[in-house]
């Protein structure tokens, strides 16, 4: 049984297959066709809906999500809001009214998804301002990109959408927000539907503790594990595989921890990237900056760091950062837990050290000690919502003008995320000189034999990776010589603003 709320109304559905998506549920079973399919792969945003979750303070917090790759069973205990649910009779929600007045729809096919992303942005702003939206400052470019980067529009070129986003806050909110916003009990009801009947959803299982998980896996050995589903569900929509039996990891208390320990940050494998962002902003700003270019808001609110690691794609963005940070992974099976360095986890193309009974439980990031630096640079065809052709994650320490404990990790250069051992050796103990980096670039050429594929040729990958080392040298040099600059000579620009770390 899935108990959830849909545009303010309670719903209860039984007998759904494990692998039905929210988009299929809406369009095929609930007859709500306002939410569109443009790709069924999480890339276009036409299917964007808003998901309301209890915020822990008696209210609901909304995020946007791609209905096409969202398991319907994950609606349990949530409030699903779609484009049909926003207007109050004929009175449009500010997000809708601003879109109309700014001429921000042409063919209109992307529009429901854009409206839903604007709605979540509006609700978040309203939440932040205590309802005083009109007094808010205009959005920054970064905030708008974070909100709208996952919504493609082929017609408008986005300018009117940008204007609508800025304009919507000034519209009157009273009587222009959905009637369900008047329901004071909605958040309690939503929270309650989460508690009810923990038991059986047929072939979709939702264990709360690891012990339950291990029991379920014993009883259902062919069941697949699912966290945010942002990788797994593509097997369903792109390869048309059936996923008849699923075990959802998102409710496992052990996989939801996010704890600051003396040695470092412990991240439960099912913690989403969206939840990590503020923590990274404080402790690993370069990692946080990468997240601005990691997929889209829709994906970051579902995707987990654990899924990114377990999926073991050679072009996943998280793993090289873990290598550069010398992170470790906690794996657990019914036999017990073991901790291993992240770099030992990736064995070969999409093969990991994870045993048949094991799950990834935690990712542990050691703190950046005094003087330790981290840079993460992603190269892709498009700045937003694209998969890396090459990603470099570099960490080092400068002691008495010499590089120490240098870790250079790359994605996209080999069958697994990997460190460039030769290049690291070339730099270890050296000053950040042109000569040392020339040697490192030379060594890098032997470290990797990258492939040519749709995202880039082998030659490009080699050159780009080497140039990232050059960028690193320039960064170290300009950063250390900063302050020495007289105010009149502008510092040399090493990177473009929009890509700046």
């Amino acid at each position, binding site marked *: 049984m899935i108990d959830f709320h849909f545009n303010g109304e309670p719903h209860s559905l039984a007998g759904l297959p494990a692998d039905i998506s929210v988009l299929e549920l809406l369009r095929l079973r609930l007859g709500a066709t306002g939410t569109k399919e443009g790709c069924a792969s999480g890339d276009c945003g036409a299917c964007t809906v808003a998901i309301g979750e209890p915020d822990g303070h008696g209210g609901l917090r909304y995020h946007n999500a791609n209905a096409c790759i969202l398991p319907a069973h994950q609606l349990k205990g949530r409030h699903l809001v779609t484009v049909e649910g926003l207007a109050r009779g004929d009175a449009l929600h500010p997000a809708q009214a601003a879109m109309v007045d700014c001429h921000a729809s042409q063919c209109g096919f992307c529009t429901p998804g854009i409206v839903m992303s604007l709605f979540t942005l509006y609700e978040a702003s309203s939440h932040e301002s205590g309802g005083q939206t009109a007094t808010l400052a205009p959005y920054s470019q970064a905030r708008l990109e974070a909100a709208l980067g996952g919504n493609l529009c082929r017609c408008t070129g986005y300018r009117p959408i940008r204007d609508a986003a800025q304009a919507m806050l000034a519209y009157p909110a009273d009587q222009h927000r959905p009637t369900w916003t008047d329901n004071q009990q909605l958040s309690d009801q939503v929270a309650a539907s989460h508690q009810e009947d923990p038991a059986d959803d047929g072939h979709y299982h939702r264990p709360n503790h690891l012990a339950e998980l291990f029991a379920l896996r014993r009883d259902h050995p062919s069941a697949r594990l699912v966290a945010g589903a942002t990788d797994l569900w593509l097997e369903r929509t792109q390869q048309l595989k059936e996923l008849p039996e699923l075990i959802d990891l998102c409710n496992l208390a052990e996989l939801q921890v996010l704890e600051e320990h003396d040695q470092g940050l412990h991240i439960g494998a099912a913690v989403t990237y969206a939840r990590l962002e503020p923590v990274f902003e404080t402790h690993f700003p370069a990692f946080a900056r990468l997240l601005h270019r990691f997929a889209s808001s829709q994906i970051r609110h579902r995707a987990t760091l654990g899924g990114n690691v377990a999926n073991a794609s050679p072009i996943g963005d998280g793993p090289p950062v873990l290598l550069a940070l010398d992170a470790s992974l906690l794996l657990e099976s019914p036999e017990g837990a073991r901790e291993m360095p992240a770099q030992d986890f990736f064995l070969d193309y999409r093969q990991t050290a994870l045993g048949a009974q094991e799950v990834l439980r935690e990712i542990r990031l050691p703190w950046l000690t005094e003087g330790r630096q981290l840079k993460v640079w992603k190269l892709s065809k*498009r700045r937003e919502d694209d998969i890396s052709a090459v990603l470099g994650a570099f960490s080092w320490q400068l002691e008495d003008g010499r590089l120490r404990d240098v870790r250079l990790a790359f994605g996209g250069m080999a069958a697994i995320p990997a460190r460039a051992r030769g290049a690291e050796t070339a730099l270890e103990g050296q000053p950040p000189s042109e000569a040392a980096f020339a040697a490192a670039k030379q060594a890098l050429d032997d470290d990797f034999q990258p492939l040519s594929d749709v995202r880039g040729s082998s030659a490009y990958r080699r050159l780009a990776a080497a140039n990232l080392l050059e960028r690193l040298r320039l960064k170290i040099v300009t950063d250390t010589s900063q302050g020495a600059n007289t105010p009149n000579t502008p510092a040399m620009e090493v990177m473009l603003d929009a890509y700046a770390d």
Partner: protein
Amino acid sequence: MRTLTKLSAASAAPDRAGEEYAGDTKGVDAKRLDKKAAQRHESAIKHVTGQAAYIDDLPAPANALHIAIGLSPLAHGRLERLDLDPVRAMPGVVDVISFHDVPGHTDIGPVFHGDPIFVENEISYAGQCLFAVAADSHDAARRAAKAAIIEIDEQPASLDPVAATEKNDLVRPTHVQQSGDWQQSLSNARHVVSGEQFIGGQEHFYLEGQACLVTPSEDEGVVVHTSNQHPSETQKLVAEVLGIPFHAVTVEVRRMGGGFGGKETQASPWACIAALIARRTQRPARLRLSRGDDMRLTGKRHPFHSRYRLGVDDDGVIQGGDMTLIGDCGYSPDLSEAIVDRAMFHADNAYSLGAARVTGHRARTHTASNTAFRGFGGPQGMMLIEQAMDDIAHRLGEDPLTIRKRNLYRHGRETTHYGQEVEQLDLLHSLIGQLESSSDYWARRAEISAYNARSPIIRRGLALTPVKFGISFTAKHLNQAGALLHVYTDGSVMINHGGTEMGQGLHTKVCQVVARELGLELSCVSISATRTDKVPNTSPTAASSGADLNGQAARDAALKLRERLFAFALETLWPQAGLKLGDLQLKGGMLMAGSGEGKYRIAWGELVQAAYIGRVSLSAQGFYSTPLIHYDREAAKGRPFYYFAYGAAVSEVAVDTLSGEYQVTRVDILHDVGDSLNPAIDIGQIEGGFIQGMGWLTSEELKWNDAGRLLSDGPATYKIPAFGDLPATFNVELLEGHPNSQASIYRSKAVGEPPFMLAISVWSALRNALASLAPDGQCPRLDTPATPERVLMAIAAMQDHGDKGPAGHPREDDAHVQA
């Protein structure tokens, strides 16, 4: 009546002084737009509330079937065996059809033959349609389609259009346009400049994929709902495939979730297949291509390989020369004859070529049949001459803008290489002059040069490029349109016309035309859907012609109706008043005549009632055909275009020369739409066209493997511009004070395609930034799309040339190895 939030964007916008404010846009200050004309899109409220229905949203009876296509896995070969029994045995399957199940025509080529509905023997591209399966769900059909046993005697695929041209493997004969003695002009020239380029194709990526719903009707016919730019052609093809008369087929299009040319010819096959299934099973049949199938099955913008040799004088003024364009047409002609023609018609862009020869080849390759896409070959033609402008400027050490201005069509040099006189020369020159100053071109040029001199890693570039785009179908017979106007007895008005709505605002504009002629509020005029049983034998909504043609046809209908009402008023309503026809006026919802004592007034609703009672027909047909145009293909001379639309853009970029990443930081556009029918819609077309053009030239990369299989087959690998690609500063203005010199609808100009080519300024600015790294006199070659990879490899090629690679290691020669 709806109560809407009546706030204009301008008055609602918060104070924009905040430093962090994202974006700076002067172009659309709502206050500047003529409020009456800047009507919102007729479906805007339906769009934002999710009520606008697209094909897959239409309710169908529970017994409707879902169809999936079986695609060829290989690019070229003979189909030796196609065993569909395993498909039939899959769960939920109801019907499976292939070549021999087609009762009527099996060739559905739109203009020329060559497009089989299903493969009979020869496979011509990877992804070609082999069979179709109908099942009781979309997923069941797609899964079943994978079960076929396919055996192919594979043959090598021809994937290189240049090699194909050399072997004379063409889908249509080569065409040549020539003016004067081009050889002489080359041999006499002070300087000969030459260059070549590869221009990549482009996937339409309409957000709504190809889709249709076909319902069997009585009398052996079908009703086809389709996302489609050319309902009449689909009607014809469906009828021919079924072997039934055209009148048994009704095609309806309410709206498309984007078309861009991709649904001009390539929406028909799916309607034909669904019609076959619907007739065979007597059940409604839906066909909606998944994104991947859509990208594999359908054709794209033509990639071009082009080269030029031009003779110029010491001032960089072109004396003449030779230009060769090779369009990669894919496996069949489709619309390639006209597309390569249009590339040739635009090989001059806004410049006089002098004594020149322009040759266009239509190469055959084993890929999907490339097709119409916004600009229809025009963009590819312009790219070559714009490359030449930059090359000439660098060769002579002049600013590219100076060279461009010297070469513009001008008095004494106003005839194109195909013999058409270019009108509105003053407009062209003043448009560029205005933009030059409003964008502060020269001051920025100086600032950028100084910046580049002190910045080793980041380099900036600036470019102004013009657009002159010919308006009319080059196939003369298509330049006609019809409309059907009904007035009902409550006074409400219904207009139908042959054009289709794909987001471009055509229906809004046509309703505005009718409302204006009848003196009514826009809300009194409604449009239902485009239907072949309302307006027959229509042309595709293409060539930017939608409003020009259908607006005129609708106006014609409205004028006829108005005449009848006027006659009725004179004869029946006010016979004693001594009024003349010229005294009557429809305005503000009234028919009025005279003034003071002799003042006559009747409200529209009463007038209509009276006319009905008086047995006056309240339905009128309108028709239009464009005057003046002709083109003699034998002589390669004529006036193919009724008029030209103009525009220009200045783009600035910043390039990271270590990574190849770049940003478009500022864009200024000034564009000519004559007297705008609807400035809000026109600005939307300009901005949207520009960003789409920028995607074509920058991030949108189509890649095939060596065997001809498309690798970039979804949005995960094919990257259209996203929100953050919108330039931070984007100033878009409509040129004021230049009504169309031809009698187009209210002296407006077509706006669908021309702005697409404004984006060439982005590519030119990228080359400009790279040229700052090149030895004097050179401007590096930069094929497109200019992805960060291509930019980086272009830089590396220059540095290798200077013998000092930045990375200092050997590299493979080919920068664009296909995986």
